């Protein structure tokens, strides 16, 4: 898929991987609807893209809130037109500092599930309908290796990402052949604010830069040969596949 001129919605676009992906896709000519809670940071990302000649609209909303899903979908469709690519990148880490499940409040787990699982489900529901009607579209779920490995203190986040992976696989199975594709990506450990919150004493030199991962993610989005329902690892991705 050539991303030039296509409508793309990215959640969690105000910083880290989401912001880097927005800048990368904007350079390739995508028309962007950017979603995040933090108004100022999101406005800055969108304004920088516009200043560089790209198209980006800042939709300030919480993907974890039920009543904000159709407002996100409606604003994005009004501002950008057809949304052909949806990237579920927004994540809630859960209790910070990271806590044992035994010390995690139920409400904290609920919030993580709302942002990382239920929100993406609702937003896909709102945006996959028009994609199905057009018989084309792509939904990308940003996952984590915490979805497959049980790391102590990553329980809420890991459980939510495992659920997200399975949601993506099931969407893919149900809509296989419809023209709407799904895949998941484990971006690996990146030098982001979220990583710093989770692992404050990490050696940042060992972490990938979000820009590098965004570049790989943009290649994946453009690659129509990725099997529907696949789960990819950014670290193992090479462009010359």
């Amino acid at each position, binding site marked *: 898929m050539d991303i030039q001129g296509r409508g793309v919605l990215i959640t969690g676009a105000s910083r880290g991987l989401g912001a880097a992906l927005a800048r990368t896709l904007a350079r390739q000519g995508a028309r962007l609807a950017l979603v995040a809670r933090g108004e100022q940071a999101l406005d800055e990302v969108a304004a920088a893209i516009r200043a560089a000649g790209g198209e980006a609209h800042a939709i*300030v909303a919480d993907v974890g809130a039920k009543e904000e899903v159709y407002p996100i979908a409606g604003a994005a*469709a009004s501002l950008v037109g057809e949304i052909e690519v949806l990237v579920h990148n927004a994540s809630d880490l859960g209790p910070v500092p990271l806590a044992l499940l035994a010390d995690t409040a139920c409400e904290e787990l609920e919030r993580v599930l709302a942002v990382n699982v239920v929100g993406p489900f609702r937003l896909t529901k709102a945006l996959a309908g028009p994609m199905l009607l057009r018989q084309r579209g792509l939904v990308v779920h940003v996952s984590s290796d915490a979805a497959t490995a049980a790391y102590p203190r990553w329980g809420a986040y890991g459980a939510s990402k495992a659920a997200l992976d399975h949601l993506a696989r099931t969407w893919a199975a149900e809509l296989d052949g419809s023209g709407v594709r799904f895949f998941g990506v484990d971006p690996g450990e990146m030098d982001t604010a979220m990583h710093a919150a989770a692992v404050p004493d990490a050696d940042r030199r060992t972490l990938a830069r979000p820009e590098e991962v965004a570049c790989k993610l943009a290649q994946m989005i453009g690659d129509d040969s990725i099997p529907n329902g696949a789960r990819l690892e950014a670290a193992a991705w090479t462009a010359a596949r």
Partner: protein
Amino acid sequence: MQAAAMQPAAWPRRDASATRLLHVDPGAGRRTARAALRHPAAVTPGSSRRRGFVDGRIGDLRVLLREGDLLVVNDAATLPASLRGVTDEGAAVEVRLVGREGEGGGCWRAALFGAGDWRQRTEDRPPPPALGAGEELRFDGAATRGEDGRRGRPDGPLRATITSVDVGSPRLISLCFATRGAALWRALYRAARPVQYAHTARPLALWQVQTAYAARPWAVEAPSAGLALSWELLLDLRRRGIAIARVTHAAGLSSTGDGELDARLPLAERYEVPEETVRAVAAARRHGGRVVAVGTTAVRALEGNARSHRGRLVAGGGTTKLRLGPAMRPRVVDGILTGVHDPGTSHFALLESFAPPALLLEAHAFASERGYLGHEFGDAMLILGEPRKAE
């Protein structure tokens, strides 16, 4: 025949597949309606077979439609089009957006309603305060903010300035909001609610007035015939060789409760017909398939477009004032999937584009007696016969 009013559906269905579907074949109907007019006593309720009525479920579209047929839906999402506000003088007013005016999205045609709320029928509400061009309206969105109060700082109210008042009706105004772009959409979605109906059990949320394929928010009331369609059904229809295509039509208000203004509805409405839909209609025609519109708004887009292009469907956007009814002979559409509407309502008359009134009256009486539900969230009717002859 005295028609009993249909019981209104008071709430959206959780399961769209439970929607009942009455198939009315205008061809079979014409033959029996003539007989009925000659011998009214001979036609008793229940003798549905003679009149070509089939009482089923929405899923029966799988057999009522056949390979090569084309279903055209209106993919407009439903806006929260109802805004509660105050005037410069502090008078309470409800503004319902009717349709966008011009480009940019900031200016709208709108209808004013007086005090009162969704529990009252619009015709029972007092008239709105008389307003003139230049007056400012202020809409406070705080009331619709999330209940948990977790999110965000309080925004300032959404503001709009009245730019003109319709010469024919003081209720009908044009206004421009003070903001544009993403900020306007955010403010609008926070301040406004979907248009409400007195016959619903509770106020409707935004997600309850969206079809399964809603895209751009152009409609101010739901293109409700499509609410009965699930993806389970639509994907199955596609697998059976029944094509599904889309138009976008900015469905306007169904009624304002003001007789004079209602007589002018629908006002000019925006539509867009994509190239792939033009191709799909041509393909259906070529292979003897039938074009079935989902709802009157899809009909208006297709037929309005064709009328602007000497009877030919042409890809692109426009506005249409086309009124459906007995005088409108469809040129593109062969049949319609619609809700069930009471005789005497404007919607009922629209269906006369597709079947003679005597047959529609009989179908209504039959559906009523069988317990079909009316209005936005009610049951469905498919008016469809054999394909038109090539012209």
